[in-house]
């Protein structure tokens, strides 16, 4: 898959402190990259560099296989707190972005509707709650039909309904081919929308992984299974399978850890040949939370 963003040893030093150290990663086109890390781990610095408002001390990056610059409308971004002129209405604030991105008023109305603020288009942004400002910031980022969205903590201050809408919006945009880079402390939301994960700790990229990836050679894969026989019998039968690493009964299911190439098809075939028909086969992956704790401790 082609990469929409490549970073090479990106580093940023503030005084004597390295906020970011030699971060190299490639972001595939159309992916949804979750950027995780504890406070002060360098997430915002990283995203700020990508958006062109922070200069890297060392290293470089390129958008669209070109340079560090992007054209107006190509990349939409939210970084830290939403930025608006409080005395201007939501529509006027959007129009300012629209001028930069060569978008028209109809598009401003469309994005206001998309982020659920069409009913307050003529209200001053200064009167908005934090959640409404976040929605407006997202609307501003969506103007110009960007190829990439860079969203730093976009869920801050947003109510559960808004989070649900934002999650669906991100999923829909990803389906349309928009690449999304999103940082958040809400790990569950990251897990629900992201295809890739980058975990930062003390300015370093400590993990870059593909979520739902069971094809990596040499990796172990875990499944939750149930069949037309008792769990105890299933457990006993599974012990004969050469790819089995470990199996344990958990309530009504058997959790098995298998070595590739013993994948789901191989497992199903093996049990079928033993006269057992599977009625439940779900791949298990380590939750983002577990991964996050492991990598950042």
């Amino acid at each position, binding site marked *: 898959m082609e990469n929409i963003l490549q970073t090479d040893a990106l580093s940023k030093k503030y005084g004597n402190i390295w906020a970011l150290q030699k971060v190299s990663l490639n972001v595939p086109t159309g992916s949804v990259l979750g950027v995780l890390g504890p406070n002060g781990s360098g997430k915002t610095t990283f995203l700020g560099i990508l958006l062109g408002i922070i200069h890297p001390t060392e290293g470089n990056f390129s958008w669209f296989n070109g340079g560090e610059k992007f054209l107006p409308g190509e990349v939409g971004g939210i970084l830290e707190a939403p930025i608006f002129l409080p005395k201007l209405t939501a529509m006027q604030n959007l129009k*300012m972005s629209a001028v*930069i991105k060569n978008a028209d008023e109809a598009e401003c109305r469309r994005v206001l509707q998309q982020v659920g603020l069409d009913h307050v288009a003529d209200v001053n942004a200064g009167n908005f709650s934090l959640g409404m400002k976040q929605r407006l910031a997202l609307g501003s980022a969506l103007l110009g039909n960007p190829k990439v969205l860079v969203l730093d903590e976009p869920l801050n201050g947003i109510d559960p309904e808004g989070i649900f809408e934002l999650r669906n919006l991100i999923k829909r945009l990803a389906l349309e081919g928009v690449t999304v880079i999103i940082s958040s402390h809400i790990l569950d939301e990251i897990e629900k929308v992201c295809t890739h994960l980058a975990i930062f700790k003390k300015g370093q990229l400590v993990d870059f992984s593909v979520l739902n990836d069971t094809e990596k050679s040499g990796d172990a894969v875990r499944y939750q299974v149930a069949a037309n026989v008792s769990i105890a019998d299933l457990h006993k039968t599974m012990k004969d399978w050469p790819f089995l690493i470990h199996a344990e009964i958990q309530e009504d299911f058997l959790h098995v850890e298998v070595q590739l190439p013993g994948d789901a098809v191989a497992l199903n075939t093996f049990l079928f040949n033993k006269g057992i028909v599977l009625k439940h086969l779900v791949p298990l992956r380590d939750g983002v939370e577990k991964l996050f704790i492991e990598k950042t401790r």
Partner: protein
Amino acid sequence: MQKILSIEGIKLRGYPIFPILLLVNVFFYVVVAMNFSKWVTIPDQQDFNVDGFGLFNPGFILETLSFLAGIFKYFSVIVLLLYVALDFRYKMHRRQVMEGMSRLESFSGKWMTTAIFVVFHIALIYFLSVVLLTHTNVVLERVNREFWYYPLLWGIEFLVLFSLGFLLVQLTRKSGLSVVLLLLYAFIVEPILGLSIKSLKPFLPISSSRNLVTFPLQDNVQVLLNIEEFIGNFPLQAFLVSLISIAVFVGVSWRLFVKSDL
């Protein structure tokens, strides 16, 4: 350029205090010019002599109004600096660059507004001159054309002070602090420097810019006493020092803007 001006236009609507201060500023110019002319013009000006004594004699009116504008430039500069600093307060540069504007476009937006502000004020000085001349039933042809450039020199004088203020805003990113520092420099630091090192004085930015539009009576007296025939001695050194000062202040501001994180 049109795009940048459109954005600045929208932003101005978000700073309602700016047009109010601008109106107050213009009001100062108009009221002072109108009333000052009553105070100092000799009563029998109807039959005036171009070479006669009087600040608002047509021959000197452009110089006089430019000089008065020079006194009020501090207020004008503060009004404009407040507008510039608001972009830092509301992180407008950050937003504009994030949305794809280049830093040059974001930086030049403020200077385009400044240029319009200065041109507007220069036009105001010319306009007020015409109004005053019309008011005193004087034919325009009798205006001393050698003085045509004084409002333009006022523009340079204004830009020296403003560009220094702009640099201070870049450094501090705070409007109040920048204004205080600017006034401290203009009224305390530079005069002390000028007194301490006399040879340095002609090369100090604010002092030089003050020499661009001289006190009008100085010329009047020279003409009156026939000390010399006044033909508009162009203040070349002050002009050059002022231009260089503007270039340095803008250059350093640009450098800071490009190199710093937004």
